[in-house]
């Protein structure tokens, strides 16, 4: 009796997990926005995005009611200089994870509608070509633990997909 109950529980939780994945192949974690000095006209947001589906998806843009505009950017080093370029559209292959982090991919979030402080939350909608928008919540933090610039040292600054 107990055995079959346990088996039933295991089965139902397995179904729940599977259905969650089936419903949304795109998973976003570790999202945060770097707190900026008061009056800053630009901020940066970071997260890890995983595509658990079989097919590739294309991240085409992002927006938030709390910012005038958001661009998907990548910092890279070229010719000895730190540079930035647009990284959209960004293809995420099936079963691929891309990390947005300081010195690499980031959301460049322009002109906050009001000053954001550590502890505030930014609501961002990520847009995809083949998928409904994904809403994420990004807490504002001074830093994500000990971090450095993990920069992409490729001289072509190329995407890796």
């Amino acid at each position, binding site marked *: 009796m107990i055995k079959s109950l346990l088996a039933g529980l295991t089965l139902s939780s397995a179904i729940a997990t599977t259905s969650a994945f089936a419903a949304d192949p795109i998973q976003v974690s570790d999202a945060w926005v*770097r707190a*900026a000095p008061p009056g800053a006209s*630009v901020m940066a947001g970071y997260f890890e995005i995983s595509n658990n589906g079989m097919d590739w998806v294309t991240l085409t843009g992002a927006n938030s009611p709390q910012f005038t505009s958001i661009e998907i950017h990548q*910092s890279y080093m070229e010719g000895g*200089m730190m540079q930035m370029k647009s990284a959209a559209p960004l293809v995420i292959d099936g079963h691929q994870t891309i990390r947005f982090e300081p010195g690499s991919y*980031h959301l*460049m979030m322009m002109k906050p509608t009001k000053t954001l402080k550590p502890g505030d939350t930014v609501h961002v909608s990520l847009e995809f070509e083949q998928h409904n928008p994904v809403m994420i919540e990004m807490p504002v933090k001074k830093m994500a633990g*000990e971090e*450095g*610039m993990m920069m992409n040292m490729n001289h072509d600054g190329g995407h890796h997909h």
Partner: protein
Amino acid sequence: MLNKLKLPLIGLAFLLLLGLAISLFQTKEPPPLKFDASMGVPIISPPVPLPEVSLLDQDGQPFSQQQFKGKWSLLFFGYTNCPDICPTALQTLSLVAKELQRSDINYVFVTVDPKRDTAAKLKGYVSFFHPDFKGLTGDKTEIDRLTQALGVIYDYEGDVESNDYIVNHYGAILVVDPQARLRAHILPPHTSKKIIKAVESIIDYYGAK
């Protein structure tokens, strides 16, 4: 009689020579400190004196290269409209400052975008990361004199006229010695651990003065 006069003279000459040798030894450039190549901390040997510059600090006060004298300084060049690289570098430097707790090190953010970065703007910006951080701005010609002497490259991308532009810029932290001479570059990527190791080794080796 002659010998009695000569001996003290020889002694004096010897002392003078010894003094000269000691002073020569002290001003002589030591063999360059060497880090493992993987660390990315090239040492400048002999060190390059900073040029004469007339800048403004975050309080709008005149700031010349003379004011680098007496302390070691860590310089980072960037701009306040920089979303990713500059805040990351300054946040990392604030960790370094908190960890090291040394009053003999200056932390200096030099803007390469003086058109938008006024002294007042820099003050709010650098103090957000650490109350003791300095910010420098000024005429572009003065900033260029400093960047050119130090090998700091940058350029503008976009429409400067309408203030819609980004600044591509050198990403290293520069180490300036207490005689206002460029002593090392700490190349990215930057972790606070790497910066602390580099700075402590450099100060230990070249001395706190």
